[in-house]
């Protein structure tokens, strides 16, 4: 092989390597930009996850929300009774309104005759 052939081959190889390196960097940079765009476009969905609360038996609750900087923050509250909830403890078979079901009454309505002392209807 002539010396010129060797030189041109080496130059072509170096040129190819430069191109591969350049495109690799560009692809990487494009990936970073795309990631940033996706994060900006859809990141708020993470921030808007509903607050979750786990109530303990004594009314204390641990709640988390996405208020702080889009991330989850947690706080402890004690005795944050949703006051109307348990309705004095005699309302239902379960009195902790924080539980994950609609609370059934301690006893169903009983039949009665005649008019009522008060009317339940829509307003």
């Amino acid at each position, binding site marked *: 092989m002539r010396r010129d052939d060797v030189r041109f081959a080496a130059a072509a190889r170096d040129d190819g390597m430069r191109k591969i390196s350049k495109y690799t960097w560009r692809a990487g940079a494009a990936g970073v930009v795309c990631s940033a765009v996706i994060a900006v476009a859809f990141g*708020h969905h993470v*921030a*808007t*996850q*509903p*607050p979750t*609360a786990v109530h303990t038996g004594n009314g204390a*609750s641990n*709640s988390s*929300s*996405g*208020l*702080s900087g889009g991330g989850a*923050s*947690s*706080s*402890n*509250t004690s005795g*944050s*009774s*949703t*006051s*109307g*909830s*348990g*309705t*004095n403890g*005699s*309302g*239902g*078979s*379960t*009195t902790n*309104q*924080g539980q*994950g*079901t*609609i*609370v*059934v*009454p*301690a*006893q*169903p*309505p*009983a*039949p*009665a*005759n*005649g*008019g*009522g*002392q*008060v*009317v*339940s*209807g*829509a*307003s």
Partner: protein
Amino acid sequence: MTTLAVGSDTFSVFGTTATLLVSEPGQVAAARVIADAELAAVDLACSRFRPDSELSRLNAAGGAVTTVSELFADLLEAALRAARLTDGDVDPTCGQALAEIGYDRDFAELRAAQAQAAGSPEAGGPPHRLRRAGHVPGWHSVQLDRGQRQVRLTHGAQLDLGATAKAWAADRCAEIIAGRLGSGVLVSLGGDMAVAGPAPGGGWRVRVTDDHAAGPEAPGQTVTIRSGGLATSSTTVRTWTGSGGQRVHHIINPATGEPARSCWRTVSVAAGSCVDANTASTAAIIRSAAALPWLRDAGLPARLVRGDGSVETTAGWPRDPGPDDAA
């Protein structure tokens, strides 16, 4: 069945009628004082029609984080709980949808405006138009940090706590009155009622019907309750005329942003609290036919009235009386 005499008081609040029944007649005045204070506080916290309310301030905050009172946080927490328990059927972010169908002012003012427009020769129709489906971003758009008492509304959400706040207030009043006075009490706010303390002999007699203002002998059914709450939702009462001349009502289906189309005209539910009863009755209207198995599975006693007046009951609700009593 004998029922001991009870004291009673009726007054206007939240654009509707409130009734207090107290098992000790001499304590009615004291109960009224307590109720007035509590209801005024709730109104100031979450009225959609008062510019000075916390709710109005939050709706106008443009998505900024807003610090709220303990009371408002309680009310919002109850609303979000109702949304969670009904898979979003009872949604507190219906404020804009309600405004878009014309319910953008106190209902008495809305009715007066409609009556005025109807009587005006130049009026081409009611003052509000039913446009495309309203905007209901969904309860996930509400961020509540309960510990810090901070709230942020995203996606343009506008709150309306009407579905739960009235019932929650009834629970709260009943609980406080019974606790302070030691007597049995029933608090009815526009027909959504909570009871607390010892019930009178025979229980509290309640006439269940379409309209809370209809009177104790209105077509329906009389039952007694001793604890918890009882609430009724209906598509027949809080109604007005849309732009096309159609009647619209205030129970929004969040999935469509429009008034719910239901096979039930009225649903009454008994539950462990008034807010739970109201949550279930409102969701039942929205769920239409699917409400019946849902209420049965949940074990909630309910009375559901179809458009033609036929009645279904669930979970121990007493069977409807004969036509003499129902008609």
